Protein backbone atom coordinates (compact mmCIF):
# COMPACT_ATOMS: atom_id res chain seq x y z
CA UNK A 1 0.00 0.00 0.00
CA UNK A 2 1.60 3.22 -1.07
CA UNK A 3 1.37 6.19 1.25
CA UNK A 4 -0.31 8.14 -1.53
CA UNK A 5 -3.08 5.59 -2.03
CA UNK A 6 -3.64 5.21 1.73
CA UNK A 7 -3.75 9.00 2.05
CA UNK A 8 -6.38 9.18 -0.68
CA UNK A 9 -8.51 6.53 1.05
CA UNK A 10 -8.35 8.53 4.30
CA UNK A 11 -9.25 11.67 2.36
CA UNK A 12 -12.29 9.90 0.94
CA UNK A 13 -13.38 9.13 4.48
CA UNK A 14 -13.65 12.89 5.11
CA UNK A 15 -15.50 13.48 1.89
CA UNK A 16 -17.94 10.73 2.92
CA UNK A 17 -18.54 12.70 6.13
CA UNK A 18 -19.91 15.60 4.12
CA UNK A 19 -22.38 13.34 2.38
CA UNK A 20 -23.59 11.80 5.63
CA UNK A 21 -23.55 14.94 7.76
CA UNK A 22 -23.67 17.91 5.44
CA UNK A 23 -24.86 20.36 8.06
CA UNK A 24 -21.50 20.75 9.78
CA UNK A 25 -19.65 21.91 6.67
CA UNK A 26 -22.67 23.92 5.51
CA UNK A 27 -22.79 25.86 8.79
CA UNK A 28 -19.07 26.41 8.50
CA UNK A 29 -19.61 27.96 5.09
CA UNK A 30 -22.55 29.99 6.35
CA UNK A 31 -20.32 31.25 9.14
CA UNK A 32 -17.81 32.53 6.60
CA UNK A 33 -20.59 34.20 4.64
CA UNK A 34 -22.02 35.69 7.83
CA UNK A 35 -18.63 37.15 8.80
CA UNK A 36 -18.39 38.58 5.32
CA UNK A 37 -21.81 40.25 5.63
CA UNK A 38 -21.13 41.49 9.18
CA UNK A 39 -17.89 43.16 8.21
CA UNK A 40 -18.99 44.18 4.75
CA UNK A 41 -22.21 45.92 5.74
CA UNK A 42 -22.36 46.27 9.54
CA UNK A 43 -18.85 47.52 10.26
CA UNK A 44 -17.75 48.39 6.73
CA UNK A 45 -19.41 51.82 6.65
CA UNK A 46 -17.23 52.96 9.55
CA UNK A 47 -13.95 51.76 8.06
CA UNK A 48 -11.81 53.99 5.87
CA UNK A 49 -9.17 52.56 3.61
CA UNK A 50 -5.92 54.53 3.31
CA UNK A 51 -5.26 55.12 -0.35
CA UNK A 52 -8.95 55.01 -1.09
CA UNK A 53 -11.24 52.32 -2.49
CA UNK A 54 -14.45 50.52 -1.74
CA UNK A 55 -14.51 48.56 1.56
CA UNK A 56 -16.23 45.48 0.11
CA UNK A 57 -13.56 45.06 -2.56
CA UNK A 58 -10.90 45.62 0.12
CA UNK A 59 -12.54 43.17 2.48
CA UNK A 60 -13.06 40.17 0.21
CA UNK A 61 -9.44 39.01 -0.23
CA UNK A 62 -8.95 39.61 3.50
CA UNK A 63 -11.92 37.41 4.37
CA UNK A 64 -10.55 34.72 2.08
CA UNK A 65 -7.16 34.81 3.79
CA UNK A 66 -8.86 34.85 7.20
CA UNK A 67 -10.95 31.79 6.41
CA UNK A 68 -7.84 29.95 5.19
CA UNK A 69 -6.13 30.74 8.47
CA UNK A 70 -9.15 29.72 10.55
CA UNK A 71 -8.80 26.30 8.90
CA UNK A 72 -6.07 25.56 11.44
CA UNK A 73 -8.88 24.98 13.92
CA UNK A 74 -10.66 22.24 11.96
CA UNK A 75 -7.35 20.51 11.19
CA UNK A 76 -6.27 20.51 14.83
CA UNK A 77 -9.71 19.38 16.02
CA UNK A 78 -9.91 16.51 13.55
CA UNK A 79 -6.39 15.29 14.40
CA UNK A 80 -7.02 15.50 18.15
CA UNK A 81 -10.37 13.69 17.88
CA UNK A 82 -8.90 10.80 15.90
CA UNK A 83 -6.03 10.48 18.35
CA UNK A 84 -8.36 10.58 21.34
CA UNK A 85 -10.79 8.01 19.93
CA UNK A 86 -8.03 5.53 19.06
CA UNK A 87 -8.59 5.86 15.31
CA UNK A 88 -5.04 7.15 14.86
CA UNK A 89 -3.74 4.09 16.72
CA UNK A 90 -5.80 1.83 14.49
CA UNK A 91 -4.28 3.48 11.41
CA UNK A 92 -0.84 3.12 12.98
CA UNK A 93 -1.38 -0.60 13.57
CA UNK A 94 -2.18 -1.10 9.88
CA UNK A 95 0.27 -1.85 7.06
CA UNK A 96 0.24 1.68 5.62
CA UNK A 97 3.01 4.26 5.27
CA UNK A 98 3.58 6.54 8.23
CA UNK A 99 2.77 9.62 6.14
CA UNK A 100 -0.69 8.35 5.20
CA UNK A 101 -2.59 9.90 8.09
CA UNK A 102 -1.16 13.38 7.51
CA UNK A 103 -1.62 13.06 3.76
CA UNK A 104 -5.27 12.10 4.23
CA UNK A 105 -5.74 15.17 6.40
CA UNK A 106 -4.08 17.38 3.78
CA UNK A 107 -6.32 16.03 1.03
CA UNK A 108 -9.50 16.46 3.05
CA UNK A 109 -8.73 19.92 4.43
CA UNK A 110 -7.44 21.34 1.16
CA UNK A 111 -10.62 20.16 -0.59
CA UNK A 112 -12.72 21.63 2.18
CA UNK A 113 -10.96 24.97 2.01
CA UNK A 114 -11.07 25.10 -1.79
CA UNK A 115 -14.85 24.82 -1.55
CA UNK A 116 -14.91 27.52 1.11
CA UNK A 117 -12.84 29.79 -1.13
CA UNK A 118 -15.22 29.18 -4.01
CA UNK A 119 -18.20 30.11 -1.83
CA UNK A 120 -16.50 33.34 -0.74
CA UNK A 121 -15.62 34.20 -4.35
CA UNK A 122 -19.19 33.65 -5.54
CA UNK A 123 -20.64 35.38 -2.46
CA UNK A 124 -18.25 38.29 -2.97
CA UNK A 125 -19.18 38.69 -6.60
CA UNK A 126 -22.85 38.77 -5.55
CA UNK A 127 -22.32 41.67 -3.13
CA UNK A 128 -20.26 43.76 -5.51
CA UNK A 129 -16.69 42.55 -5.22
CA UNK A 130 -14.87 42.55 -8.57
CA UNK A 131 -11.66 41.11 -9.98
CA UNK A 132 -10.14 43.88 -12.03
CA UNK A 133 -6.87 42.19 -12.96
CA UNK A 134 -6.06 39.53 -15.56
CA UNK A 135 -7.09 35.86 -15.11
CA UNK A 136 -3.46 34.76 -14.59
CA UNK A 137 -3.05 37.06 -11.59
CA UNK A 138 -6.41 36.01 -10.18
CA UNK A 139 -5.42 32.34 -10.38
CA UNK A 140 -2.12 33.15 -8.66
CA UNK A 141 -4.08 34.92 -5.90
CA UNK A 142 -6.19 31.80 -5.34
CA UNK A 143 -3.06 29.63 -5.27
CA UNK A 144 -1.43 31.90 -2.67
CA UNK A 145 -4.55 31.68 -0.52
CA UNK A 146 -4.45 27.89 -0.74
CA UNK A 147 -0.74 27.97 0.07
CA UNK A 148 -1.56 29.75 3.33
CA UNK A 149 -4.14 27.06 4.07
CA UNK A 150 -1.51 24.40 3.35
CA UNK A 151 0.89 26.08 5.76
CA UNK A 152 -1.55 26.35 8.66
CA UNK A 153 -2.57 22.74 7.98
CA UNK A 154 0.81 21.66 9.31
CA UNK A 155 0.38 23.89 12.36
CA UNK A 156 -2.97 22.18 12.90
CA UNK A 157 -1.53 18.68 12.54
CA UNK A 158 1.23 19.54 14.98
CA UNK A 159 -1.17 21.03 17.53
CA UNK A 160 -3.68 18.21 17.15
CA UNK A 161 -1.05 15.52 17.69
CA UNK A 162 0.64 17.34 20.55
CA UNK A 163 -2.32 18.67 22.54
CA UNK A 164 -5.05 16.08 22.40
CA UNK A 165 -7.37 17.24 25.17
CA UNK A 166 -10.65 18.95 24.38
CA UNK A 167 -9.41 22.03 26.23
CA UNK A 168 -6.57 22.40 23.76
CA UNK A 169 -9.03 22.37 20.89
CA UNK A 170 -10.96 25.18 22.53
CA UNK A 171 -7.72 27.11 23.08
CA UNK A 172 -6.96 26.95 19.35
CA UNK A 173 -10.50 28.06 18.54
CA UNK A 174 -10.10 31.12 20.78
CA UNK A 175 -6.54 32.03 19.83
CA UNK A 176 -7.18 32.22 16.09
CA UNK A 177 -9.34 35.30 16.64
CA UNK A 178 -6.75 37.75 17.99
CA UNK A 179 -4.18 36.41 15.53
CA UNK A 180 -6.68 36.74 12.73
CA UNK A 181 -7.68 40.28 13.66
CA UNK A 182 -4.16 41.51 14.34
CA UNK A 183 -3.55 41.61 10.60
CA UNK A 184 -4.59 43.57 7.57
CA UNK A 185 -7.31 41.03 6.74
CA UNK A 186 -10.21 43.21 7.95
CA UNK A 187 -8.72 46.67 8.45
CA UNK A 188 -5.67 48.45 7.11
CA UNK A 189 -2.58 48.38 9.30
CA UNK A 190 -2.12 52.08 8.64
CA UNK A 191 -5.20 52.93 10.70
CA UNK A 192 -3.80 51.15 13.76
CA UNK A 193 -1.45 52.62 16.40
CA UNK A 194 2.02 52.53 14.83
CA UNK A 195 3.45 49.66 16.90
CA UNK A 196 0.33 47.54 16.44
CA UNK A 197 0.30 48.30 12.73
CA UNK A 198 3.91 47.16 12.44
CA UNK A 199 3.05 43.93 14.22
CA UNK A 200 0.03 43.38 11.97
CA UNK A 201 2.08 44.00 8.85
CA UNK A 202 4.39 41.15 9.83
CA UNK A 203 1.52 38.72 10.34
CA UNK A 204 1.76 36.04 7.59
CA UNK A 205 -1.97 36.49 7.15
CA UNK A 206 -1.38 40.13 6.13
CA UNK A 207 1.10 39.06 3.46
CA UNK A 208 -1.41 36.72 1.84
CA UNK A 209 -4.31 39.18 2.18
CA UNK A 210 -2.28 42.03 0.66
CA UNK A 211 -0.86 39.87 -2.13
CA UNK A 212 -4.36 38.62 -2.99
CA UNK A 213 -5.62 42.23 -3.09
CA UNK A 214 -2.83 43.25 -5.42
CA UNK A 215 -3.34 40.24 -7.68
CA UNK A 216 -7.15 40.61 -7.81
CA UNK A 217 -6.67 44.32 -8.55
CA UNK A 218 -8.37 45.42 -5.32
CA UNK A 219 -7.45 48.27 -2.97
CA UNK A 220 -4.73 47.17 -0.54
CA UNK A 221 -5.06 49.81 2.18
CA UNK A 222 -1.29 50.00 2.26
CA UNK A 223 0.61 52.86 0.70
CA UNK A 224 4.18 52.19 1.71
CA UNK A 225 6.53 49.74 3.38
CA UNK A 226 7.94 46.26 2.82
CA UNK A 227 4.48 44.70 2.73
CA UNK A 228 3.29 47.11 0.03
CA UNK A 229 6.37 46.51 -2.10
CA UNK A 230 6.86 42.75 -1.70
CA UNK A 231 3.46 41.31 -0.76
CA UNK A 232 3.55 38.42 -3.25
CA UNK A 233 7.05 37.44 -2.24
CA UNK A 234 6.05 37.52 1.44
CA UNK A 235 2.88 35.54 0.67
CA UNK A 236 5.10 32.81 -0.78
CA UNK A 237 7.89 33.06 1.80
CA UNK A 238 5.82 33.08 5.01
CA UNK A 239 3.84 29.91 4.25
CA UNK A 240 6.96 28.09 3.05
CA UNK A 241 8.70 29.07 6.27
CA UNK A 242 5.73 27.82 8.31
CA UNK A 243 5.76 24.50 6.43
CA UNK A 244 9.51 24.22 6.91
CA UNK A 245 9.02 24.59 10.66
CA UNK A 246 5.76 22.73 11.29
CA UNK A 247 5.97 19.80 8.85
CA UNK A 248 9.08 18.43 10.63
CA UNK A 249 7.50 19.23 14.01
CA UNK A 250 4.39 17.29 12.93
CA UNK A 251 6.50 14.35 11.80
CA UNK A 252 8.28 14.44 15.13
CA UNK A 253 4.99 14.59 17.05
CA UNK A 254 3.75 11.58 15.03
CA UNK A 255 6.92 9.64 15.79
CA UNK A 256 6.57 10.60 19.43
CA UNK A 257 3.32 8.68 19.58
CA UNK A 258 5.72 5.72 19.67
CA UNK A 259 6.58 6.86 23.19
Amino acid at each position, binding site marked *: *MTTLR*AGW*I*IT*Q*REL*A*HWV*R*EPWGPIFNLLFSVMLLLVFGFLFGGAIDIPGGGDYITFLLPGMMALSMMFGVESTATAMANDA*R*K*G*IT*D*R*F*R*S*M*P*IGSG*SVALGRVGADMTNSAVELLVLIVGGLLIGWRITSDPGSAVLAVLLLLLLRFAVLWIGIFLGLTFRGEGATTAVQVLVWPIGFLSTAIVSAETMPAWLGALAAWNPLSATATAARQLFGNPTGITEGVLADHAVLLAIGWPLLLVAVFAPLSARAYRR*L*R*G
Partner: protein
Amino acid sequence: MNTLVAEGLRKRYGDLHALDGFDLHIPPGVIHGLLGPNGAGKTTVVKALTTLIDVDGGTATVAGFDVRTQSAQVRRRIGLIGQNAAVDEVLGGRQNLVMFGRLYGLGKAAARERADELLDTFGLTDAADRAVSTYSGGMRRRLDIAAGLILTPAVLFLDEPTTGLDPRARNEVWATVRETAARGTTVLLTTQYLDEADQLASEISVMNHGKIIANGTPEALKRQVGGDRVTVTIGQRDDLHHVAGRLAEAVGEPAVTDDDTRGVTFELPAGVTAVSGVVRALDDLGVTPEDLLLRRPTLDEVFLTLTEKEPAR
Protein backbone atom coordinates in the same frame (compact mmCIF):
# COMPACT_ATOMS: atom_id res chain seq x y z
CA MET B 1 6.03 -22.74 17.61
CA ASN B 2 4.43 -20.02 19.68
CA THR B 3 2.40 -17.43 17.79
CA LEU B 4 3.41 -14.75 20.20
CA VAL B 5 6.65 -14.49 22.11
CA ALA B 6 7.78 -11.67 24.35
CA GLU B 7 11.02 -11.89 26.27
CA GLY B 8 12.33 -9.39 28.76
CA LEU B 9 10.38 -6.41 27.40
CA ARG B 10 11.27 -3.12 29.05
CA LYS B 11 9.67 0.26 28.66
CA ARG B 12 10.17 3.32 30.80
CA TYR B 13 8.07 6.45 30.95
CA GLY B 14 10.14 8.83 33.04
CA ASP B 15 10.47 7.16 36.43
CA LEU B 16 7.74 4.64 35.73
CA HIS B 17 8.81 1.18 34.58
CA ALA B 18 5.71 0.40 32.54
CA LEU B 19 7.31 -2.86 31.38
CA ASP B 20 9.95 -4.34 33.65
CA GLY B 21 11.14 -7.59 32.12
CA PHE B 22 7.85 -8.75 30.65
CA ASP B 23 7.73 -12.34 29.33
CA LEU B 24 4.89 -14.06 27.50
CA HIS B 25 4.54 -17.15 25.30
CA ILE B 26 1.27 -17.89 23.58
CA PRO B 27 0.69 -20.98 21.42
CA PRO B 28 -1.50 -20.69 18.30
CA GLY B 29 -5.27 -20.69 18.44
CA VAL B 30 -5.85 -19.99 22.11
CA ILE B 31 -7.42 -17.15 24.03
CA HIS B 32 -4.85 -15.85 26.47
CA GLY B 33 -6.00 -13.57 29.24
CA LEU B 34 -3.67 -10.88 30.53
CA LEU B 35 -4.97 -9.86 33.88
CA GLY B 36 -3.90 -6.93 35.98
CA PRO B 37 -5.10 -3.86 37.84
CA ASN B 38 -5.13 -0.37 36.35
CA GLY B 39 -1.60 0.79 35.71
CA ALA B 40 -0.11 -2.72 35.70
CA GLY B 41 1.20 -2.16 32.15
CA LYS B 42 -1.37 -4.14 30.13
CA THR B 43 -1.95 -1.44 27.53
CA THR B 44 1.79 -0.91 27.19
CA VAL B 45 2.16 -4.63 26.41
CA VAL B 46 -0.50 -4.41 23.71
CA LYS B 47 1.05 -1.27 22.22
CA ALA B 48 4.51 -2.82 22.16
CA LEU B 49 3.29 -6.04 20.53
CA THR B 50 1.22 -4.17 17.92
CA THR B 51 4.22 -2.04 16.86
CA LEU B 52 2.68 1.17 18.20
CA ILE B 53 5.50 1.99 20.60
CA ASP B 54 9.22 1.32 20.73
CA VAL B 55 10.39 -0.70 23.70
CA ASP B 56 13.62 0.09 25.52
CA GLY B 57 14.74 -3.53 25.72
CA GLY B 58 13.81 -7.15 25.13
CA THR B 59 12.48 -8.91 22.05
CA ALA B 60 9.06 -9.84 20.78
CA THR B 61 7.80 -11.76 17.79
CA VAL B 62 4.25 -12.01 16.49
CA ALA B 63 3.48 -14.78 13.99
CA GLY B 64 7.20 -15.28 13.64
CA PHE B 65 8.06 -11.66 12.83
CA ASP B 66 10.02 -9.30 15.02
CA VAL B 67 7.87 -6.39 16.15
CA ARG B 68 10.83 -4.03 16.05
CA THR B 69 12.52 -4.86 12.77
CA GLN B 70 9.65 -6.37 10.75
CA SER B 71 6.77 -4.12 11.75
CA ALA B 72 5.22 -4.11 8.26
CA GLN B 73 4.92 -7.93 8.26
CA VAL B 74 3.58 -7.88 11.82
CA ARG B 75 0.93 -5.29 10.93
CA ARG B 76 -0.39 -7.45 8.12
CA ARG B 77 -0.96 -10.26 10.62
CA ILE B 78 -2.57 -8.54 13.58
CA GLY B 79 -5.82 -6.89 14.49
CA LEU B 80 -5.88 -4.28 17.25
CA ILE B 81 -8.96 -3.55 19.32
CA GLY B 82 -8.08 -0.70 21.65
CA GLN B 83 -9.86 0.56 24.73
CA ASN B 84 -12.13 2.84 22.70
CA ALA B 85 -14.14 1.56 19.77
CA ALA B 86 -11.89 3.04 17.08
CA VAL B 87 -14.42 3.34 14.32
CA ASP B 88 -15.67 6.38 12.47
CA GLU B 89 -18.95 7.40 14.09
CA VAL B 90 -20.22 9.50 11.23
CA LEU B 91 -19.87 6.76 8.65
CA GLY B 92 -22.00 3.62 8.48
CA GLY B 93 -20.75 0.22 9.54
CA ARG B 94 -20.25 -0.94 5.97
CA GLN B 95 -18.41 2.26 5.02
CA ASN B 96 -16.07 1.76 7.96
CA LEU B 97 -15.24 -1.82 7.01
CA VAL B 98 -14.77 -0.95 3.34
CA MET B 99 -12.45 1.93 4.25
CA PHE B 100 -10.33 -0.20 6.59
CA GLY B 101 -10.37 -3.06 4.07
CA ARG B 102 -9.01 -0.79 1.35
CA LEU B 103 -6.35 0.49 3.75
CA TYR B 104 -5.36 -3.13 4.30
CA GLY B 105 -4.74 -3.25 0.57
CA LEU B 106 -7.94 -4.88 -0.68
CA GLY B 107 -9.39 -3.63 -3.97
CA LYS B 108 -12.77 -1.87 -3.89
CA ALA B 109 -14.77 -4.95 -4.85
CA ALA B 110 -12.85 -7.25 -2.52
CA ALA B 111 -13.19 -4.75 0.34
CA ARG B 112 -16.96 -4.59 -0.18
CA GLU B 113 -17.26 -8.35 -0.31
CA ARG B 114 -15.23 -8.76 2.89
CA ALA B 115 -17.27 -6.03 4.59
CA ASP B 116 -20.51 -7.84 3.75
CA GLU B 117 -19.12 -11.13 5.05
CA LEU B 118 -18.05 -9.55 8.34
CA LEU B 119 -21.31 -7.63 8.77
CA ASP B 120 -23.13 -10.92 8.34
CA THR B 121 -20.86 -12.79 10.76
CA PHE B 122 -21.24 -10.11 13.41
CA GLY B 123 -24.97 -9.66 12.98
CA LEU B 124 -24.68 -6.10 11.75
CA THR B 125 -26.16 -6.47 8.28
CA ASP B 126 -29.42 -4.74 9.23
CA ALA B 127 -27.53 -1.76 10.65
CA ALA B 128 -24.85 -1.75 7.94
CA ASP B 129 -25.79 1.60 6.41
CA ARG B 130 -26.78 3.44 9.57
CA ALA B 131 -24.30 5.90 11.07
CA VAL B 132 -22.23 4.20 13.77
CA SER B 133 -23.23 6.97 16.20
CA THR B 134 -26.68 5.32 16.31
CA TYR B 135 -25.22 1.92 17.30
CA SER B 136 -25.43 0.48 20.80
CA GLY B 137 -22.18 0.04 22.73
CA GLY B 138 -22.12 -3.67 21.96
CA MET B 139 -22.75 -3.15 18.23
CA ARG B 140 -19.99 -0.57 18.10
CA ARG B 141 -17.59 -2.96 19.77
CA ARG B 142 -18.57 -5.75 17.38
CA LEU B 143 -17.93 -3.49 14.42
CA ASP B 144 -14.63 -2.51 16.00
CA ILE B 145 -13.65 -6.17 16.32
CA ALA B 146 -14.82 -6.88 12.76
CA ALA B 147 -12.50 -4.11 11.53
CA GLY B 148 -9.64 -5.89 13.25
CA LEU B 149 -10.45 -9.15 11.48
CA ILE B 150 -10.54 -7.94 7.89
CA LEU B 151 -7.36 -9.76 6.87
CA THR B 152 -8.10 -12.74 9.19
CA PRO B 153 -5.13 -11.93 11.42
CA ALA B 154 -2.94 -14.50 13.12
CA VAL B 155 -3.30 -12.60 16.38
CA LEU B 156 -6.11 -10.40 17.60
CA PHE B 157 -5.26 -8.01 20.43
CA LEU B 158 -8.13 -6.88 22.60
CA ASP B 159 -7.32 -4.24 25.19
CA GLU B 160 -10.04 -4.26 27.85
CA PRO B 161 -12.76 -4.81 25.25
CA THR B 162 -15.71 -4.78 27.64
CA THR B 163 -14.78 -1.80 29.81
CA GLY B 164 -17.81 0.46 30.02
CA LEU B 165 -20.21 -2.01 28.42
CA ASP B 166 -23.43 -3.19 30.02
CA PRO B 167 -23.77 -6.94 30.78
CA ARG B 168 -25.69 -7.65 27.61
CA ALA B 169 -23.14 -5.95 25.38
CA ARG B 170 -20.40 -7.70 27.32
CA ASN B 171 -21.96 -11.07 26.53
CA GLU B 172 -22.12 -10.09 22.83
CA VAL B 173 -18.42 -9.28 22.86
CA TRP B 174 -17.55 -12.49 24.68
CA ALA B 175 -19.43 -14.55 22.09
CA THR B 176 -17.58 -12.68 19.34
CA VAL B 177 -14.20 -13.36 20.92
CA ARG B 178 -14.99 -17.06 21.31
CA GLU B 179 -16.08 -17.33 17.66
CA THR B 180 -12.93 -15.55 16.54
CA ALA B 181 -10.73 -17.97 18.42
CA ALA B 182 -12.77 -20.92 17.14
CA ARG B 183 -11.86 -19.86 13.60
CA GLY B 184 -8.18 -20.20 14.46
CA THR B 185 -7.11 -16.69 15.44
CA THR B 186 -4.93 -16.41 18.52
CA VAL B 187 -6.37 -13.89 20.93
CA LEU B 188 -4.56 -11.84 23.54
CA LEU B 189 -7.12 -10.23 25.78
CA THR B 190 -6.28 -7.81 28.55
CA THR B 191 -8.79 -7.28 31.28
CA GLN B 192 -9.16 -6.13 34.83
CA TYR B 193 -12.37 -8.10 35.13
CA LEU B 194 -11.45 -11.39 36.65
CA ASP B 195 -14.56 -13.24 35.61
CA GLU B 196 -13.89 -12.16 32.04
CA ALA B 197 -10.52 -13.89 31.94
CA ASP B 198 -12.07 -16.87 33.72
CA GLN B 199 -14.91 -17.09 31.19
CA LEU B 200 -12.87 -16.67 28.03
CA ALA B 201 -9.26 -17.61 28.46
CA SER B 202 -7.75 -21.06 28.50
CA GLU B 203 -4.53 -19.62 29.87
CA ILE B 204 -4.11 -16.60 32.11
CA SER B 205 -1.14 -14.41 32.95
CA VAL B 206 -1.40 -12.10 35.90
CA MET B 207 0.71 -8.96 35.64
CA ASN B 208 1.56 -6.19 38.05
CA HIS B 209 4.21 -3.46 37.98
CA GLY B 210 5.19 -4.26 34.39
CA LYS B 211 5.84 -7.97 34.69
CA ILE B 212 4.11 -11.32 34.92
CA ILE B 213 3.65 -12.54 38.47
CA ALA B 214 1.76 -15.74 37.72
CA ASN B 215 0.88 -17.92 34.74
CA GLY B 216 -1.42 -20.86 34.19
CA THR B 217 -4.86 -22.17 33.46
CA PRO B 218 -7.65 -20.55 35.48
CA GLU B 219 -7.95 -23.79 37.47
CA ALA B 220 -4.23 -23.98 38.19
CA LEU B 221 -4.16 -20.39 39.34
CA LYS B 222 -7.06 -20.99 41.65
CA ARG B 223 -5.35 -24.06 43.07
CA GLN B 224 -2.26 -21.96 43.71
CA VAL B 225 -4.31 -19.91 46.15
CA GLY B 226 -5.50 -22.88 48.11
CA GLY B 227 -8.42 -25.24 48.27
CA ASP B 228 -12.16 -24.90 47.96
CA ARG B 229 -14.16 -22.35 49.87
CA VAL B 230 -17.32 -22.81 51.80
CA THR B 231 -19.46 -19.78 52.48
CA VAL B 232 -22.19 -19.87 55.11
CA THR B 233 -24.78 -17.13 55.01
CA ILE B 234 -26.25 -16.32 58.42
CA GLY B 235 -29.82 -15.07 58.83
CA GLN B 236 -29.14 -12.57 61.64
CA ARG B 237 -26.47 -9.96 61.21
CA ASP B 238 -26.02 -9.61 64.99
CA ASP B 239 -25.01 -13.26 65.24
CA LEU B 240 -22.47 -13.05 62.44
CA HIS B 241 -19.25 -12.57 64.36
CA HIS B 242 -20.29 -14.81 67.23
CA VAL B 243 -21.16 -17.65 64.84
CA ALA B 244 -18.03 -17.00 62.77
CA GLY B 245 -15.85 -17.34 65.86
CA ARG B 246 -17.47 -20.57 66.98
CA LEU B 247 -17.34 -22.03 63.48
CA ALA B 248 -13.67 -21.14 63.13
CA GLU B 249 -12.95 -22.99 66.36
CA ALA B 250 -14.88 -26.05 65.25
CA VAL B 251 -13.46 -26.17 61.71
CA GLY B 252 -9.93 -25.22 62.71
CA GLU B 253 -9.57 -22.63 59.91
CA PRO B 254 -9.65 -18.83 60.07
CA ALA B 255 -12.98 -17.34 59.00
CA VAL B 256 -13.46 -14.36 56.69
CA THR B 257 -16.68 -12.51 57.43
CA ASP B 258 -18.54 -10.15 55.15
CA ASP B 259 -21.04 -7.91 56.97
CA ASP B 260 -22.83 -6.86 53.78
CA THR B 261 -23.70 -10.36 52.64
CA ARG B 262 -23.74 -11.84 56.19
CA GLY B 263 -21.35 -14.47 54.87
CA VAL B 264 -18.69 -16.45 56.71
CA THR B 265 -16.10 -18.01 54.41
CA PHE B 266 -13.60 -20.76 55.21
CA GLU B 267 -10.86 -22.17 53.10
CA LEU B 268 -11.04 -25.98 53.20
CA PRO B 269 -7.70 -27.54 52.33
CA ALA B 270 -9.14 -31.03 52.74
CA GLY B 271 -11.66 -30.38 50.00
CA VAL B 272 -15.28 -31.37 49.90
CA THR B 273 -15.20 -33.81 52.82
CA ALA B 274 -14.45 -30.98 55.24
CA VAL B 275 -17.90 -29.53 54.59
CA SER B 276 -19.41 -32.07 56.97
CA GLY B 277 -17.33 -30.46 59.76
CA VAL B 278 -18.92 -27.10 59.04
CA VAL B 279 -22.40 -28.56 58.94
CA ARG B 280 -21.86 -30.38 62.25
CA ALA B 281 -20.58 -27.20 63.86
CA LEU B 282 -23.68 -25.32 62.67
CA ASP B 283 -25.85 -28.06 64.13
CA ASP B 284 -24.07 -27.88 67.48
CA LEU B 285 -24.59 -24.13 67.56
CA GLY B 286 -28.24 -24.57 66.66
CA VAL B 287 -27.87 -22.17 63.72
CA THR B 288 -29.75 -22.77 60.50
CA PRO B 289 -27.90 -20.98 57.72
CA GLU B 290 -29.79 -19.16 54.97
CA ASP B 291 -27.39 -20.54 52.44
CA LEU B 292 -24.38 -22.80 52.29
CA LEU B 293 -22.15 -22.64 49.23
CA LEU B 294 -19.16 -24.77 48.32
CA ARG B 295 -17.03 -23.24 45.55
CA ARG B 296 -13.58 -22.90 44.00
CA PRO B 297 -11.73 -19.66 44.80
CA THR B 298 -12.65 -16.77 42.52
CA LEU B 299 -10.01 -15.04 40.47
CA ASP B 300 -10.54 -12.02 42.69
CA GLU B 301 -9.19 -14.03 45.56
CA VAL B 302 -6.42 -15.37 43.32
CA PHE B 303 -5.49 -11.89 42.33
CA LEU B 304 -5.47 -10.45 45.82
CA THR B 305 -3.34 -13.32 47.09
CA LEU B 306 -0.83 -12.96 44.25
CA THR B 307 -0.47 -9.20 44.46
CA GLU B 308 -0.14 -9.30 48.24
CA LYS B 309 2.87 -11.56 47.77
CA GLU B 310 4.44 -8.87 45.61
CA PRO B 311 6.92 -6.72 47.49
CA ALA B 312 5.56 -3.21 47.85
CA ARG B 313 7.30 -0.49 45.87
